[in-house]
């Protein structure tokens, strides 16, 4: 019995943590949809949804019910296997980086010896990251690259002109801006010396003047623009614009499969906001929290987590604000901008960072 | 039984075998290209297994080189396939045999 418990304990703990994290992110995503509709409404001089519950707070649940009960259309000549696979691939690749997010500082003040069978011995801290791997940044970039498949396969398998055009354009846009996104991260990695997300936060966690947005401002701007293009949001949302391509690659998707694509887009937005916060704004660190609470205690972790969420909401609000403000790019303007301006700018940033780091260190 | 070096080598050998059979069996030029990538991945697994069991970083370095070569080969190979398609309107390798006879 004891050996069974000892073998199963890590699996149970990790599964519980992953489910908790997924639930948290999905609820946040549902309320981001509501926030977008309300903020867009205020920008456009109207009130957003406010019928379902006070201030429209229950709107996401109404949307969920609508998606479940809608008729599920499958186009006749589509390739069924790939048609069903594509939204799953998109959502899975959007949700996978959640296991890497540094939700807060590790908690060191809990005494774990109350666990039976000696499971608590040797545990000194509870890290608030589910998977601590050395190469967190590369992993997130890689999973975002795999997410392109969902869109390309969706566009092709619907067997419709608009879907194919939208899918191919969207995939071409995403792979073009991945390069600029990766190149803009190199400067941050050089300054912090590690690819680990927790390590990058620790390198910034002493004062707000060490946050990498200050030395790497060009990198920050490039990453933000590339992130808008990666998540197919305005001003780069030509492939899914209603007036251009009849909703692009998800034209032929209805009901729950469309809901999966929709959720995948907002989870991608969330991922990118987390990456911007961690890489450039110091993650969960807020100056002054270490004076109010003891470092490593639970209130400190909760306050840091709330700071982290606050910074993420700032970037989600920025996404929504830009959606309400800017017009969209034409596709050739978009590709020109990505290859001919943004990528050379990111590379110039890398070279500049190399020179400055070298001369400061010698 | 515990997984040892032999298991990883066996998995790598099986992947290589399946890739080699695929190269001879398939007629589509892109299919042949994909089977070549499968063979390269089998070899990568061998390198990483040896690097782990003998604690040498050379194996992983070499895997990195193999991946770069595979990326370059993908770019040029797909360019060749597109050029072949433009001229013959098919990527069937049996149709690209004008040097024969």
């Amino acid at each position, binding site marked *: 019995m004891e050996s069974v418990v000892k073998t199963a304990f890590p699996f149970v703990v990790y599964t519980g943590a992953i489910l908790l994290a997924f639930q948290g992110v999905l609820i946040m995503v549902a309320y981001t949809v509501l926030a977008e509709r309300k903020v867009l409404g205020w920008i456009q001089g109207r009130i957003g949804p406010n019928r379902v519950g006070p201030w429209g707070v229950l709107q996401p649940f109404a949307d969920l019910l609508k998606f479940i009960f809608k008729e599920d259309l499958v186009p006749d000549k589509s390739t069924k296997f790939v048609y069903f696979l594509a939204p799953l691939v998109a959502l899975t690749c959007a949700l996978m980086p959640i296991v890497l997010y540094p939700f807060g500082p590790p908690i060191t003040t809990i005494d774990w010896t109350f666990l039976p069978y000696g499971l608590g011995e040797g545990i000194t801290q509870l890290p608030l990251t589910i998977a601590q791997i050395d190469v967190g940044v*590369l992993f997130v970039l890689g*999973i975002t690259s795999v997410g392109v498949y969902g869109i390309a396969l969706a566009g092709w398998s619907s067997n419709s002109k608009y879907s194919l055009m939208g899918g191919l354009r969207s995939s071409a846009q995403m792979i073009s801006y991945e390069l600029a996104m990766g190149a803009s991260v190199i400067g941050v990695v050089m300054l912090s010396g590690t690819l680990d997300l927790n390590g990058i936060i620790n390198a910034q966690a002493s004062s707000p003047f060490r946050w990498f947005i200050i030395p790497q401002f060009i990198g920050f701007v490039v990453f933000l623009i590339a992130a808008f293009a990666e998540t197919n949001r305005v001003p780069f949302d030509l492939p899914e614009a209603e007036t251009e391509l009849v909703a692009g690659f998800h034209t032929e998707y209805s009901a729950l499969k469309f809901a999966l694509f929709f959720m995948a887009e907002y989870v991608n937005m969330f991922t990118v906001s987390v990456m911007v916060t961690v890489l450039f704004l110091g993650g969960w660190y807020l100056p002054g929290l270490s004076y109010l609470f003891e470092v490593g205690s639970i209130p400190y972790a909760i306050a840091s987590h709330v700071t982290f969420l606050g910074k993420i909401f700032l970037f989600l609000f920025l996404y929504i604000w830009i959606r309400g403000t800017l017009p969209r790019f034409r596709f050739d303007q978009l590709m020109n901008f990505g290859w001919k301006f943004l990528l050379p700018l990111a590379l110039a940033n890398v070279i500049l960072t190399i020179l400055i780091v070298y001369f400061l260190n010698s | 039984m515990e997984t040892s070096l032999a298991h990883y080598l066996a998995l790598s050998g099986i*992947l290589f075998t399946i890739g080699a059979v695929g190269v001879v069996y398939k007629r589509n030029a892109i299919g042949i290209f994909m089977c070549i990538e499968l063979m390269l991945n089998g070899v990568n697994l061998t390198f990483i297994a040896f690097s782990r069991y003998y604690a040498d970083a050379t194996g992983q370095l070499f895997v990195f080189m193999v991946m770069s070569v*595979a990326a370059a080969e993908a770019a040029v190979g*797909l360019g060749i396939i597109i050029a072949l398609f433009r001229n013959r309107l098919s990527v069937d390798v049996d149709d690209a045999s004008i040097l024969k006879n």
Partner: protein
Amino acid sequence: MASTIIFYLLAGFAIACAISLVIHRNPLYSAISLVGVFLSLSCIYFTLAAPFIAAVQVLIYAGAIMVLVVFVILLLNLDDDKPLTRLRYLYAVAGGLGLALLAQTLFIFYAVMRTPQEEINTEQTVGNTLSIGRAMYTEYLLPVEIVGVMLLMAIVGAVVLVRKLNQPQLELVVEEELELRHEKEEKDDYRIAF
């Protein structure tokens, strides 16, 4: 115990995807199976203490090379593979080659299982990014530079290969091909701008 189960699961998934790659005649299904092989191999690299190579495998193989391949398949709108009509002996060659390589694999498995093996040195971590980066730029600098030049050659070569021919040249070439196939009535279908 748990690591053995994980290895067999991942290995089984990799072999199943590899067999599916060879068996399917539709090139898109083959491409999806190959992505499955790459992802399961990446997980195996994680268990072999090579996190950097695992992340790079997802980033480059599954995220860039296969996206290119899927693009080409979707753009060229390729049909299923047709069975061989002229070179039937190739099936026998494939079978023979497969059996010979499989026999070699089993022999290697048997031979390596029988050699006495020393304990794995678990303290030394050679897979983390710092040691790989250090090795790349001190001991193995020349191969890294050669790889850089080779990638440049590949880029130039790919751009030259897919240059657009001048329009009259393209029409002449395609006209010839269509005459060879006696299919004059399908003239309108090939005017796709790449």
